[in-house]
């Protein structure tokens, strides 16, 4: 063990846990300030998310979104790229899903539509990442700037399409017609016998998300491409020395990242809304950044972080309902605190932990 390094379990488990606890403590102070009981608030939040079947269903539904956007950010991280365009890529992914569903839903069952919709979602998301990727690889325009700008372009484009091109005739709503059965994914409870999530929309996409985690793990740690991605991310100099093309890796990685973000739309559009509608991404793309940071860009960590954020979303909604003094905006503050501690202040407690581990480890391992 070298100085400046924590054991893996501490790095991957203890640190995020400490950060979450710190976020909750500060949130508790805020709850106290507005005159409510923080212990009671936590009880409602946790119960709302995990205490009843429908709550769990909603938690898993939200987590599905976060897994996809978290994986998207994580893959780019491994190549040293900061893709914060998940929001726009997921939005465009919705277009891919909707086109597939609108074309097929009246003619074929859902399991024929699904592969086409997945391909459409991934392709549309990847395509939306391609231009920033190309600009980064060839012209040196930073992806942080270009991907965030592409979020705005995506929003405008979708408004245009939904209002002028795809809107249901005779409706004032900027949304497409509702898909028929061939464009709807089955709910999880209809596949798993004996499970009842009530009216929660958690659906087959959750399985798809877990499958994506496995595939991303294989890609990053078990393929030659993943090796190149990690090498480029860890040391661009070593990548060039090894004959790895920075241009190719930048573009390929961003395509994979954009594709994963786009797949989020399967859950929302084909799994829950059954129609393409405006602003359905509503921040999941951005929260994916926090999920990836907190999950240490590792699929297992991302699943855990995604479930945590699912809990915050679902439990937060219950909390806003049960405690009128805590408004929907307060929930956003709490979520923001978690993001702040897990993301921005990720390393705040690291020096302290290092010192603690240094004290514990010092007598045990005298250098030979």
């Amino acid at each position, binding site marked *: 063990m070298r100085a400046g390094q924590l054991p893996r379990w501490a790095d991957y488990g203890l640190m995020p846990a400490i950060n979450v606890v710190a976020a909750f403590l500060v949130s508790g102070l805020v709850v106290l300030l507005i005159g409510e009981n923080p212990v009671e608030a936590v009880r409602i939040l946790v119960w709302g998310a995990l205490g009843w079947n429908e709550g769990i269903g909603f938690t898993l539904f939200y987590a599905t979104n976060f897994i996809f956007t978290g994986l998207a950010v994580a893959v780019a991280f491994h190549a040293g790229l900061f893709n914060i365009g998940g929001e726009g890529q997921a939005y465009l992914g919705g277009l891919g899903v909707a086109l597939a569903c609108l074309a097929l839903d009246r003619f074929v069952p859902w399991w024929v539509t699904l592969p086409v919709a997945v391909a459409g979602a991934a392709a549309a998301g990847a395509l939306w990442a391609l231009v920033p990727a190309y600009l980064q690889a060839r012209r040196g325009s930073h992806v942080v700037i270009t991907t965030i700008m592409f979020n705005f372009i995506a929003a405008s484009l979708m408004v245009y399409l939904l209002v002028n091109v795809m809107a249901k005739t005779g409706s004032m709503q900027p949304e497409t017609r509702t898909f028929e059965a061939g464009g709807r994914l089955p709910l999880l409870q209809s596949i798993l016998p004996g499970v009842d999530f009530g009216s929660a929309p958690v659906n087959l996409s959750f399985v798809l998300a877990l499958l994506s985690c496995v595939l991303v793990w294989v890609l990053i740690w078990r393929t030659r491409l993943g090796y190149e991605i990690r090498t480029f991310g860890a040391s661009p100099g070593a990548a060039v020395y090894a*004959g790895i093309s920075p241009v190719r890796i930048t573009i390929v990685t961003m395509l994979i990242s954009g594709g994963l973000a786009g797949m989020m739309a399967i859950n929302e559009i084909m799994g829950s809304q059954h129609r393409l509608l405006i602003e359905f991404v509503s921040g999941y793309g951005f929260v994916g950044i926090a999920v990836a940071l907190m999950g240490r860009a590792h699929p297992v960590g991302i699943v855990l972080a995604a479930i945590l954020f699912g809990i915050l979303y679902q439990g937060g909604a219950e909390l806003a309902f049960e405690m009128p003094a805590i408004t929907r905006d307060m929930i956003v503050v709490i979520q923001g605190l978690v993001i702040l501690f897990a993301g921005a202040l990720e390393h705040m407690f690291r020096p302290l932990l290092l010192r603690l581990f240094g004290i514990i480890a010092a007598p045990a391992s005298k250098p030979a």
Partner: protein
Amino acid sequence: MTAPLAIELVGIDKRFGSVRANKDIDLKVAKGSIHGIVGENGAGKSTLMSILYGFYHADAGEIRVDGRPVTIADSQAAIALGIGMVHQHFMLVENFTVLENVILGAEGGPLLAGGVARARATLKRLAEDYDLKVDPDAVIEDLPVGLQQRVEILKALFRGADILILDEPTGVLTPAEADHLFRILKVLRDEGKTVLLITHKLREIMAITDEVSVMRRGEMVATRQTAKTSMGELAELMVGRRVLLEVEKQPASPGRPVLQVENLTARDGRGVDVVRDVSFEVRAGEIVGIAGVSGNGQSELLEAIAGIRPVRSGAVTIDGTRLDLARNPVDAAAMRRHGLAHVPEDRHRMGLVTSFSEYENAILGYHRDPAYGRGPMLDIGAIREAARAEIEKYDIRPPDCLLRTAGFSGGNQQKIVLAREIERDPVILLVGQPTRGVDIGAIEFIHKRLVALRDAGKGVLLVSVELDEIRALADRVLVMFDGRVVGERAPETDESELGLLMAGAAQEAAE
């Protein structure tokens, strides 16, 4: 010497982590003189000057300016003491005018008007006094580099500098601009200013300094009066002599050429040609050493041949396959397929990914090899097995292929790179600084491996700044100076003769 001292450094020590960049440095600089400081890249010159200018703080030692002990907390304090610095990379705002740049940070109040008028007058006076003419209203980015540098000097003088530090000032200048700079420096000296000139170009030292101090590996090894020394002596002092273990080897029996380099020209990051029209060949079963003071194009030459650095013109032939690198650029992976292996000079930035495990580094550059997996997949088991075999064969310690590479010592890290490159059975191996930052035991091991590779009928191209290493290992020695190969000698050649070549004496005679 009886002249009063402008600067005196006593026992300056500076450590970065485990590296001691400055070891117990003493330096005396006489008032009104031009004092040169020479040394190779990484010798500690810039660190020392940064301490003097308040960028770094010395761990120990004393700084005296005009005889008084001082502490220099930051560059503001240095300026207040009359120390000015002209950086290697100019610190100018490109789209500001000369005048705006000069007053930047010395505006003299919240409102610009008064300061600007005063600055204009001062600039005019300085320009006349020191022959430093620049249009104060010209925009920086429109000026040639020589004039930009003049603005840097004006900036320092404007702040009342009596002691001027110039860090590698001629690196970016044309010869004519450099000559003009030297004239300016002499005027400054004659007006009573003290100039500290940091460089690794010996010709400049000989041309304008009064005294010269030589640094090597963080130590101040000598100070000479320029008139009483020679380029040869300085080159030897810079490179240093070191008791080196003799390497046992039989005379070489060179076979067919395995690497031919024809008229290779390549640029560095700034767009300056640093490898110029270099041609040579390496035959099977011989070690060719490239000697030279660092910064004369050897590093870039290796990178160009390895497919890492773009080539401007010229061709490289590997084992009979001719590659016109200027017309059809080839990456490092293609070079490896042709049978070239490369132990790079900088193992931290290139040769290894230090955050990876040992076994992951054991395939860097060879990760597309069919032996390591089927199709797009990597076979981790097979990779670890191969890595363990290399660990065993090269006695890499600790023998743990799962350990992060950053956790290995310098010598063992170098062995990881060497094992990877040699075990792929290349026809030609490029080696840069094989024993930099490597302990004695590992040095001996590495040298033996290189000789064994030669005896197995492979070609080895060795670049090292350690002259002794080259003399011990090489069968032929090429000397590089200023981007060109200026001579070929037998390794037994007298050190001072090699030193002269390395200092560019042949070049001098030719001009």
